[in-house]
């Protein structure tokens, strides 16, 4: 690896680390992070394919409320370095990604805990009206998140491709890497399950089955599903509107005997 590649890799890893806490531009998602690592290391195609594979794995990993998801940033950056530099299989990349995601999760919990220190420092600066110092507390927390991915990535990059690492990776039996690749085809169901659970809308599940059935028995593409979904959403909202309006009108009418009769007729 050239010095230039080391520097670029450091930047990509740092941006992915920042992305993992910011959750804005999505630089920490495998699809983006692996592609960028591939770009830096001169094998963008492998980066994209690994990114697509790991994105399926990480589809449901999201930070909702105070809950912490497994860490996609460290998993994507480090496993793509090892796969690309050491010419390993995509299966080996998947095998590496899961423990790395768990390790990254521990690291980010650690950083989010020590950032409490910046929080209290900011209180002190607020009392003095020092805006710049508060901004620096903010940047400090962000930089720690950058380093918690960039430093491990640099350490791995320094040894990636050496005989020791390659023989360690090569010692993973083929049945494991092939088996992992096979699982890669359906591992995304965990993500779908997380997303469906998060929406927590049992009454809307018929729409899920409708989508499933249309997909199974027709050749509609994803754009088509988007359009069908919008039409369903339109009718659903219309229905909901009617329901809420009649519910809102309910208590007002309750004193009126005529309307009471109407209501019972509807039952």
């Amino acid at each position, binding site marked *: 690896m050239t010095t230039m590649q080391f520097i670029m890799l450091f930047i990509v890893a740092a941006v992915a680390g920042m992305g993992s*806490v*910011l959750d*804005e*531009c*999505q630089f920490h*998602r495998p*699809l983006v992070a692996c*592609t960028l690592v591939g770009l830096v290391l001169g094998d963008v*195609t492998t980066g994209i*394919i690994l990114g*697509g594979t790991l*994105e399926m794995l990480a*589809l*449901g990993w*999201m930070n909702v*409320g105070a809950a912490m998801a497994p860490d996609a940033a460290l998993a994507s950056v480090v496993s793509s370095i090892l796969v690309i530099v050491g010419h390993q299989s995509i299966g080996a990349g*998947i095998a590496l990604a899961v423990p790395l*995601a768990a390790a990254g999760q521990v690291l980010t919990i650690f950083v*989010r805990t020590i*950032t*409490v220190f910046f*929080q209290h420092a*900011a209180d002190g600066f*607020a009392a003095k009206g020092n805006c710049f110092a*508060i*901004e620096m*507390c*903010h940047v400090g927390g962000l930089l720690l*998140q950058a380093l918690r991915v960039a430093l491990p990535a640099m350490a791995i990059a320094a040894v990636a491709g050496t005989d020791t690492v390659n023989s360690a990776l090569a010692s993973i039996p083929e*049945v494991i890497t092939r*088996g992992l690749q*096979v*699982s890669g*085809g*359906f591992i*995304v*169901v*965990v993500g779908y*399950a997380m*997303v*469906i659970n*998060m*929406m927590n*809308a049992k009454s*809307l599940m018929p729409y899920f089955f409708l*989508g*499933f*059935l249309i*997909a199974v028995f027709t050749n509609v593409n*994803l754009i088509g*599903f*988007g359009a069908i*979904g*919008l039409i*369903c*959403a*339109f009718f659903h909202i219309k229905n*909901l*509107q009617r329901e*809420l309006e009649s519910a809102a009108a309910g208590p007002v009418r309750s004193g009126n005997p005529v309307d009471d009769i109407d209501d019972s007729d509807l039952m």
Partner: protein
Amino acid sequence: MEKKLTKGDLINIFIRSNFLLGSFNFERMQSIGFCVSMIPALKKLYKGEELNQALKRHLEFFNTQPFLATPIMGIIAAMEEKRANGADISDQTISGVKVGLIGPLAGVGDPIFWGTLRPVLAALGAGIALTGSIIGPLIFFIAFNAIRLLTHWYGVMYGFEKGTELVDEVGGNRMRYLTEGASVLGLLVMGALVAKWTTVNMPLVMSSYVNSQGDQVVVTVQSILDSLMPGIVPLLMTFACMALLKKGVNPLVIIIGLFALGICGYAIGLFA
């Protein structure tokens, strides 16, 4: 002289809002990020002790869906502007608006952005990426960020323009329509993805015979399943995962379990 926030101040808030979660911590979460986003407005409106108080006011607990924090920033900027010009708005009123909005906005934002938009775009992008095409990551990155930036921009601008009027709107029915509509769209597409964006191949041979035309016919587990209901295996797997997640099983444990299933299945020839 009346103190006014300019378009430039609002643009500054919009830019800073992109870094809301930078110093996320387990004590007050997005608190410093919110304060830093409001600093352009606070500096313009207050001096001396009043500024210290304003900074302190916005370092309290804050946590919501990051894209939908922007309407709160807009509303608070409008309230602070009125307050700086002598309107009778207490600390409690401002805190009340913030605390009152973070819950409902997270309730709307989480299913829309994390539950629908990102997984759908990511699955679309990942599907294309598996063929090695750069279009995959590009579609995901560009489409997601375009929608995100528009949300941030209109969040700040609309929030500022409407001010406290918007508080009632967030509590009203329109937000519920938006959430449920997005969930309908999300679930429908998710159902399609379960069927289309998964690969399960079970070539285990059940029987093999020569038919009346003299052709060799091989019946595998997969061909039987395909004739009954294609995609039934990933569907059942999804339901199993939902049940396990509801029991509180860590998703990484489920992922490792599915990997073990894949490896064992491959070893005995059930999967390929």
